[in-house]
């Protein structure tokens, strides 16, 4: 595994209509790091993500993925190295059946026969889809959570070293979101997760990068960045819900603790974080 899979230096991007989406981004991500990329709408998250997979090429500055400089001649290797999971699974799952869609990436890598089957089965297991039940299902008739899993399996099947997610928890119900969090926790890959779901960021990622108007305005430990309410509000974000619930107050935690201890004599772990509000 490459020790420094993504490094971006002084990257800028201006859309054809003149909107400056990225301004001088500097970013380095280490192997097996799980990094959250947060920012308000229009802060340039998606534009940045599209640079990691070669869908957009740098206009200024440079992007190095693994040992590959972002350039047309390296695109094939780069796309095998970085797997991009799109926000809307309907955009990503374009083959009629689940199996065909998952096999799409590996087939582009030239896999055939048993090797291909093994790769697909493995990645279906990795996302918790039973190949027997799902392989021949029509992509149209899956639930949102299942579609998300198929989309992730399709990317995992290419065996990338870096996974990049665009809003992975958007449009998922609480149970599917929870399953997604467990799934991402179980994958031992370098992950970059662009999200508005700051609670998900808090739970999954040790490091958080904040984008605002195309610039990196914050980069550090997730708890530190998401705990700084003024900073977040300056950049049109707000602190995670789990930081702002009333029972997070210290005195309440003690009160609840005493109730649970007195009630049936057993101690119940509530697992809340004590933050002053």
């Amino acid at each position: 595994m490459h020790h420094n899979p993504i490094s971006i230096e002084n990257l800028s991007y201006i859309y054809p209509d003149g909107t400056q989406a990225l301004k001088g981004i500097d970013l380095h991500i280490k192997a097996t790091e799980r990094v959250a990329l947060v920012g308000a709408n229009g802060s340039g998250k998606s534009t940045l993500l599209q640079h990691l997979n070669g869908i957009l090429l740098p206009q200024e500055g440079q992007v190095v993925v693994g040992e590959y400089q972002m350039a047309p001649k390296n695109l094939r290797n780069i796309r095998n190295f970085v797997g991009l999971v799109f926000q809307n699974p309907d955009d990503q799952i374009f083959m009629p059946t689940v199996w065909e869609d998952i096999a799409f990436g590996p087939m582009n890598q030239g896999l055939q026969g048993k090797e291909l089957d093994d790769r697909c089965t493995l990645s279906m297991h990795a996302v918790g889809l039973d190949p027997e039940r799902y392989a021949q299902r029509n992509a149209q008739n899956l639930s949102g959570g299942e579609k998300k899993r198929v989309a992730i399996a399709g990317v995992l099947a290419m065996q990338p070293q870096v996974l990049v997610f665009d809003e992975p928890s958007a449009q998922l119900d609480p149970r599917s979101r929870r399953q997604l969090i467990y799934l991402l926790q179980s994958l031992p890959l370098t992950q970059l997760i662009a999200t508005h779901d700051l609670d998900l960021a808090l739970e999954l990622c040790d490091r958080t990068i904040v984008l605002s108007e195309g610039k990196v305005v914050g980069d550090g430990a997730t708890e530190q960045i998401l705990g700084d309410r003024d900073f977040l509000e300056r950049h049109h974000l707000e602190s995670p819900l789990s930081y702002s619930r009333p029972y997070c107050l210290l005195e309440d935690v003690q009160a609840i603790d005493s109730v649970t201890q007195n009630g049936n004599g057993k101690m119940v772990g509530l697992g809340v974080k004590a933050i002053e509000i």
Partner: protein
Amino acid sequence: MLLLHIGGVRLDVDSHKQTSWHDLTPQIRISCVLLMVLAIALTPNGRWWTWAIYGVGILGVLLASRVTFSVLLKRFAVELSFVGVILLGTLFRDGGEVLWQWGWLRITTTGLTVLGSVTLKAGLSLLLLNLLVLTTPIPVLLQALGALRVPPLLVAILASMYRYIGVLIEEFNSMQRAAVSRNLMSNRRWHRLVIGNAIGALFIRTYERGERVHYAMLSRGYDGLPHLRKMPKNQRRDILALTSTALLALLGQAVYLK
């Protein structure tokens, strides 16, 4: 509005049965059906015995493949009603003896022959195509088309049409629901205008979605040529099936040889 149901209806009701027809590889099933449809359609009008022989053959395959007749007949009836409109046009044409006349409308012997022939051709072909779709899932059919050397790009286009028609219909329905929920029922003309706009918006959305889908394909290493899965090789029974289909086609034509 038949199209509206494509996403939800299961087309291949009988694809899991195990019969000698299902044992054939999908590409051979397509070849047999195509061969028969060509033979049926290219038979000149009025050769009733040819179609009778073909009909017996088709009935044999229908029985052998154990398709669900209620579903088959239902679909057949719906499809034939569309064909019916065209058939009416063939009835009132000139030529031969006039059997019945009312104003400029008249039924002639030629008209009747053409009507009967076209009905038979359409009916027999529809039966065969329904048999194919009932017993073979669409994705398998598409793969089989690839195996039959249909250009891969064309197969890929068909596959994404099949995949996205449901998504588009869902998008159109949700736009329509959104309009209705804001009280779109005042008058008919306005309603039509709004639906027209919705279709226009859908066109643009399709375009945008196409772009996003293309990005998603690129990011998984797509290089402009879709790869097709390997299909099972032809076996002896496949060759036998194709040969007997060809023989049946020839036999039907041979009845009128002089």
